[in-house]
């Protein structure tokens, strides 16, 4: 299968082509099944690759496909890189995509642009797998922009709604800021190392003695790209608005896969990051602060999907914290588990919306536990997983990050992350309790029609629930009797062995400390859940009272720290003013003036030469002859 790795990429592309051009002949069911089947085949291929890789001694495999650009010193080869890191990522991406494709068949069943939706979704999978499997960073960049495009198209999928169209534009523009950073990073990388091929860059980075500033600049520029795509401070503002898109899109693109591309990219190029402690500190700090910051916003929001969106930002912050302290494997591990339970949370939210005719405000829900039991149970499992309940996926991965942060001596960030873990448990169970427990606050009209989603939606949710439970067992830490398999497996990735990782290994404290921290984080998680139970089930008057007593602070957090307003005032409005100035004083009189002046001149000359145009072919022929004679005369005289 390794020799046919390109098939993994091609299947979704075939799906795009067929659905885009012939989808309307297939009918809704056909188009949905085709798209799902293509991603399913891709998934089988990815698993096959993964299995084959396990049997190899040297687990870094490259497969060249074709030469893309070859100009002077600049050579770009489209080449697939299959190593533990990319194979794990490919399996996660294609697997989650497959389940969400199937779910979408049910969820989008009544949408008139059904076929287009699946074409976009397949295109997204193609772009994402390109990003993951590319060996050359320029090809990665192509995939990077491709997923950005799909994200834009899918956020604005219901473009009749102004909010959706605006959200799409916002996502595109904010991402552009990050992408510029990424592009600059690639250029600097090419200037420094003379290549954009991953293996060559990493090889060079080990050998070449760089000025420390250069390494930091490259790493930070790449990180700017990651910040944009993975929605970290200060570029996270697009992700909450992106919830205007269809819910499966939120689950697939804005929770499980695309937004983790930044984490993947940092892990992929971490050799460069390892060269610059400054850059790593920035990554860890931004990650830790974002995790906390977003979690606080999530506490106050009333929109089901927005809470999940802020939760995603917060969890991505965890991943960056992990890679920022040099625990790349822990970051990728959390990425993997998060993909399952966060996708499941979104699909659960979608199922709730489906049951309540599109309602998203959690104040208008409640008591749904018995009405939609499958949704409730799967949602509960995912909530337990994200809260870090012992034994579930999120517990192992989050704890690994916390432990590595502590072991690295970043105590302040560790404390912040621990606090965030408590907040996470609290806000997610706030959702569970307000949506599924207590009195029903559903509109009378809607309440009559509450129903469980069809099998095509609940079965993928059940699978994701299964993975939310078991995915953690690929990375059970040593003190719990596990072998931390994923860390060892990922160790075989391209350029993975670095001095920094070794330092993290030696800096670890005693087993006793690790046990203490483990128990502490379990207590924090349970405390969060318990507090949520007290506040939202027992003493339902508490939330409003707390909100009132906090007063201004609560409103400030509820308004998302007014970051959008701040950006509007500091960036958007001045830019608009500059644009207006140039439009009115430069574009009009100067640019248009030059263009119109030239046009007027041409018209003037034309009027002068008009006389020559007699319309008589004979006159023109005479002109030719005069020319011929003059040429001959010139040749003779010369």
């Amino acid at each position: 299968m390794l020799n046919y790795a390109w098939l993994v990429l091609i299947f979704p592309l075939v799906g795009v082509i067929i659905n885009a051009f012939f989808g309307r002949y297939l009918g809704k069911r056909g188009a949905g099944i085709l798209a799902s089947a293509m991603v399913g085949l891709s998934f089988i291929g990815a698993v096959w690759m993964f299995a084959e890789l396990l049997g190899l001694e040297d687990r870094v495999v490259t497969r060249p496909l074709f030469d893309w650009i070859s100009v002077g010193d600049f050579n770009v080869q489209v080449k697939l890189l299959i190593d533990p890191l990319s194979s794990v990522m490919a399996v996660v991406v294609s697997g989650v995509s497959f389940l969400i494709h199937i779910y979408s068949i049910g969820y989008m069943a009544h949408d008139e642009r059904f076929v287009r939706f699946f074409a976009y979704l397949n295109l997204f999978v193609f772009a994402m797998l390109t990003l993951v499997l590319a060996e050359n960073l320029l090809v990665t960049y192509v995939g990077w922009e491709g997923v950005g495009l799909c994200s834009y198209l899918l956020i604005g999928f219901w473009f009749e709604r102004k909010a959706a169209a605006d959200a799409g534009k916002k996502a595109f523009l904010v991402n552009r800021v990050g992408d510029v950073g990424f592009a600059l990073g690639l250029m600097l990388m090419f200037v420094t190392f003379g290549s954009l091929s991953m293996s060559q860059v990493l090889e060079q980075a080990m050998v070449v003695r760089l000025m420390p500033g250069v390494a930091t600049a490259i790493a930070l520029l790449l990180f700017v790209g990651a910040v944009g795509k993975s929605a970290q401070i200060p570029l996270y503002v697009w992700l909450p608005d992106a919830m205007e898109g269809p819910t499966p899109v939120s689950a697939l693109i804005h929770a499980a896969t695309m937004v983790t591309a930044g984490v993947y990219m940092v892990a992929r190029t971490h050799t460069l990051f390892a060269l610059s402690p400054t850059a790593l500190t920035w990554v860890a700090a931004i990650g830790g602060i974002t995790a906390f910051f977003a979690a606080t916003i999530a506490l106050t929001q009333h929109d089901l999907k927005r809470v999940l969106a802020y939760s995603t930002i917060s969890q991505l912050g965890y991943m960056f914290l992990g890679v920022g302290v040099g625990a790349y494997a822990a970051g990728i591990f959390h990425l993997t588990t998060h993909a399952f339970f966060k996708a499941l949370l979104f699909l659960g939210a979608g199922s709730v919306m489906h049951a309540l005719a599109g309602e998203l405000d959690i104040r208008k829900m409640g008591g749904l536990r018995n009405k939609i039991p499958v949704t409730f149970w799967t949602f509960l499992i995912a909530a337990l997983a994200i809260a870090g309940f012992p034994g579930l996926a999120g517990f192992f991965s989050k704890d690994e990050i916390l432990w590595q942060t502590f072991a690295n001596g970043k105590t302040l960030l560790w404390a912040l992350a621990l606090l965030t873990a408590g907040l996470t448990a609290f806000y997610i169970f706030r959702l569970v309790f307000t949506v599924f427990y207590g009195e029903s606050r559903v509109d009378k009209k809607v309440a009559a029609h509450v129903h469980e989603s069809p099998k095509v939606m609940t079965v993928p949710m059940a699978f994701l629930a299964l993975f939310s439970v078991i995915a953690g067992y690929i990375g059970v830490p040593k003190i719990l009797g596990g072998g931390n398999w994923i860390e060892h497996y990922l160790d075989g990735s391209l350029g993975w062995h670095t001095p920094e990782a070794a330092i993290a290994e030696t800096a670890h404290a005693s087993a006793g400390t690790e046990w203490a921290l483990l128990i502490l984080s379990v207590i924090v998680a349970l405390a969060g859940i318990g507090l949520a139970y007290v506040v939202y089930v027992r003493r339902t008057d508490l939330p409003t009272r707390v909100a009132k007593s906090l007063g201004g602070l609560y409103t400030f957090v509820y308004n998302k720290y007014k970051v959008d307003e701040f950006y509007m005032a500091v960036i958007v409005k001045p830019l608009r003013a500059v644009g207006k100035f140039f439009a009115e004083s430069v574009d009009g009189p100067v640019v248009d003036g030059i263009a119109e002046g030239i046009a007027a001149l041409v018209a003037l000359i034309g009027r002068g030469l008009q006389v020559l145009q007699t319309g008589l072919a004979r006159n023109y022929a005479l002109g030719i002859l005069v020319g011929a004679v003059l040429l001959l005369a010139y040749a003779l005289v010369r």
Partner: protein
Amino acid sequence: MTLSSLHYFILSAILFAIGGIGVLVRRNVFVIFMCVEMMLNAVNLSLIAFARYLNQADGQLLVLFVMAIAAAEVVVGLAILVALHRKRPTTDADEMNVLRG
């Protein structure tokens, strides 16, 4: 005295000039068209003569291509004249001056 390419070339130049005069002097579009064909043929003659006196086949091939293109040109040109005649039943080139500036 033996013939050389010079004689053929002079003949070709004379025929070319006569054709040119015809194009410039006549106003009947058909005759103008015929004169254009004649000019093409005059050039063909010198090509064949050079091919002969340089002992190379290329000149003859060039003539074949000129003929091919001339044939296409005649066909399209006559079709244009037929189409034109429908709009404006005249053969006088001087009356076809709609495109004057």
